[in-house]
């Protein structure tokens, strides 16, 4: 294991997160089993009081969970000087078998934690606990993934040995490399550009329509999710090329480095944040007819839609600016 402050912070942070989750899930299961708002029993009233505590604990815990994705990527990138062959986070994640699965888990947990926080926020605006069962059921479903992430994180960092020779990003994200990296890199640029802009336009139009009319929420949310996936693929397929001004360098991690002004962080924050806001809008729709949520959810959805539109627009502007003003041009 490499004793780096960020590694220790991640391990301690994920341990605390897991501990808090154990506590929250224990009460979450009790709430799922015993909750009865009509009852004035001692158990019911104690669960009502307990849910404030759990909600507060989880708000901070899952906020850390969200931030930890960026700390993890930063750490992986920062450690690349220690491994022969690594040029950025891509190589460091390849040092052992847990790196990439851990990254994927962290991204999945980021999205799920964001969605849980949105549902929790809606629930705490209501006076009648309208989403209490939904949010604890979701928590019970998310918790194993976060616990698995903690396990993978320990396995990954404990298995980091500086004498390992790893691969560089140039080889991991090369066109002829089998696997997800190679597949994404080999996606044709021109159709991907069209798909990217078409996805962003569809999300923007459906989002504006939903914002103004309050209809078409599922379509907007669906477009938002599909566009998220297209944008992730586009990052590897063609967006990175414009940042590196190299026709063969598809690495999605090098843009996180100082040479590129840490632009990658802004790209990932806008994309992930917009994705969570868009998906959250759709997931709230079937819950909007529950008690006090009839007023709360539409207002929250408007805010989420505005956030999605703003973040996706920012992402598109950053990408477009680079495509227009970079001296690099992709040929046919």
């Amino acid at each position: 294991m490499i004793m780096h402050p960020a590694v220790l912070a991640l391990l301690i942070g994920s341990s605390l997160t897991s501990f808090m989750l154990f506590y929250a899930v224990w009460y979450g299961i009790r709430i799922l089993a015993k909750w009865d708002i009509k009852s004035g029993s001692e158990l019911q009233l104690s669960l009502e009081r307990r849910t404030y505590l759990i909600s507060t604990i989880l708000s901070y815990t899952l906020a850390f969970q969200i931030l930890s994705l960026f700390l993890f990527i930063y750490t992986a990138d920062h450690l690349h000087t220690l491994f022969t062959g690594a040029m950025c986070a891509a190589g460091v994640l390849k040092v052992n078998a847990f790196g990439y699965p851990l990254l994927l888990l962290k991204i999945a947990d980021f999205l799920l934690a964001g969605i849980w926080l949105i549902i929790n926020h809606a629930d705490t605006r209501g006076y009648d606990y309208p989403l209490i069962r939904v949010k604890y059921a979701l928590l019970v479903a998310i918790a194993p993934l976060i616990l698995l992430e903690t396990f993978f994180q320990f396995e990954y960092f404990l298995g980091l040995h500086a004498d390992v020779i790893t691969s560089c990003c140039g080889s991991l994200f090369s066109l002829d490399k089998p696997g997800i990296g190679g597949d994404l890199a080999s996606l044709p640029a021109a159709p991907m550009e069209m798909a990217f802009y078409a996805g962003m336009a569809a999300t923007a139009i459906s989002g504006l329509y939903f914002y103004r009319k309050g209809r078409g929420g599922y379509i907007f949310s669906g477009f938002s999710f599909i566009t998220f996936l297209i944008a992730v693929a586009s990052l590897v397929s063609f967006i990175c090329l414009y940042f590196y001004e190299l026709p063969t360098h598809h690495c999605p991690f090098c843009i996180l480095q100082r040479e590129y002004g840490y632009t990658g962080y802004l790209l990932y924050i806008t994309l992930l944040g917009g994705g969570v806001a868009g998906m959250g809008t759709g997931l709230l729709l079937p819950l909007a007819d529950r008690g006090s949520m009839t007023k709360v959810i539409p207002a929250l959805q408007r805010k989420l839609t505005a956030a999605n539109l703003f973040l996706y627009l920012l992402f598109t502007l950053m990408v477009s600016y680079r495509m227009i003003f970079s001296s690099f041009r992709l040929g046919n």
Partner: protein
Amino acid sequence: MIELQRVTKSFNAGKSNQFTAVQDVSLSIEPGRVTVLKGPSGSGKTTLLTLIGCMARPTSGRIMFHGLNTASFPGAGEAGEVEITSLPERFLTGIRRASFGFIFQHFNLVRGITVLENVMLPAYPVGEGHGIMRKRALRLLEMFDISRHALSRVDFLSGGESQRVAIARALINNPSVIIADEPTAHLDTMLSREFMGIVGSFKNEGKTILIASHDPLVYDSPLADKVVEMRDGRITHDVGPP
């Protein structure tokens, strides 16, 4: 109407020093009437007032508030019927602010600031303009014949004056329910009678008044529509209209 359904309040629940201050109390408090909780010290009157006034939560049981202003409750029915013991804190704060006026045994005025500022304090979170609040506070001070002390610090007031300031403060947000905890405990007979006169004017305005007291001047007053006798946290006697 405020309706208590089998309300119990225990402190240090589950520990060796558990103490049950209110036990299995069911009670209806009629709107526009004066209800007096009567009983010796330690009978649970104050605890019951804090539960009704949303300052504490019961250990078990429910409290229904009929006729509540539910403007700040998204999606609530127009009936204005809300079960208050399960409400999240943010809503309880709103109810305390808008629906209840509290008069405490020791007045609980904030020393070091003026009478006028004390009266205006509960109105600040409502977000009204300062001029409007000030005007209303001065009108209340005038009503209780204490406007001459408006700019004096509360530290220099007599007991009777302090209480009138406390009453004015309880009324600043125009609550529908006035809760008074042993309001005459520190007053002489003349001031106690004066206080009951003020209670009569509240009643005429249609406010619901709930008083905890072991002063005969209060519970024997003809103003009291209902007298609820308590001992050891339980209701032992309940006299009043059905």
